């Protein structure tokens, strides 16, 4: 045939180099995504705690949106009446991250007024 090609070692070495650079890039990207999620999740948890405090104090708007740390968070609370004036409130904070909807839910039990 008379055609010349690459040695197996040369091909393997090239593949190894490409794989190493690719793996490095993927791991850096994954780490950046994890850090971004940590920031947004913590922000959402603290916003949920704020809503819980407002609910415990007896009044909170049904739904509110606000921008924090580069993302838009939607805070909502849903009230379910229980027995003897007590009720349960579910606080939900949602945001969009890399095209995916994320949510943090915080259940709150509110005692009956004395």
């Amino acid at each position: 045939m008379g055609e010349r090609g690459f040695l197996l070692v040369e091909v393997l070495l090239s593949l190894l180099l490409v794989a190493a650079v690719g793996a490095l890039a993927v791991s850096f990207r994954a780490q950046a995504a994890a850090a971004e999620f940590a920031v947004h999740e913590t922000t959402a948890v603290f916003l949920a705690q704020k809503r819980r405090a407002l609910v415990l104090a007896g009044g909170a708007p049904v739904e509110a949106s606000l921008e924090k740390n580069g993302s838009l968070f939607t805070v909502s609370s849903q009230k379910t009446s229980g027995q003897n004036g007590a009720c349960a409130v579910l606080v939900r904070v949602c945001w969009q991250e890399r095209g995916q909807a994320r949510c943090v839910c915080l259940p709150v039990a509110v005692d009956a007024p004395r």
Partner: protein
Amino acid sequence: MRRVECRHGVAGFMLAEVLLSLALLGVVTAALSTAFLGMVRLYREEVAVLELLAQARFAAQSLLRDITYAQFVRIDEEQIAVFTQRNASSLQKIVYKLDKKKKEWRIMKEGQPLTGESKSARVSFSEMHFTQRERGVICVELTAVDLDSGRKISLETAAFMQNWREDADAGA
């Protein structure tokens, strides 16, 4: 690559081939090093952001815990005094304030730094605001900055004072 037979029978490369290889090597090295340095910078920024987050979360949780069990609070500019029941007859006063003496502003609790030095970031708290809302709700806003990269983390939360009474601070 095509090898050239020279007069003495020693094989070699043409000058054009060597120059082209060097140019290609230079371009590839420059592209790879730029990408690698960019990734390293990104990595450092992410580590700094996580450090900011950890310090802001720690400070916010400490504040929320103390405010939740407080009898009443007194809010000044970038300062809050939290009064909790020590025993039946006396109150304990815990003061949180922003210390601006150094370049890195720190949150102090009872004169001791609650936030501050870190190996991975130069953390400074640029804002600490408190607002008293209806029926014993205290809103807290904290902003932490990495002085090297300029990245900011802002946390907004609130605590409901479980022992709050409308006339609690009248006799203090």
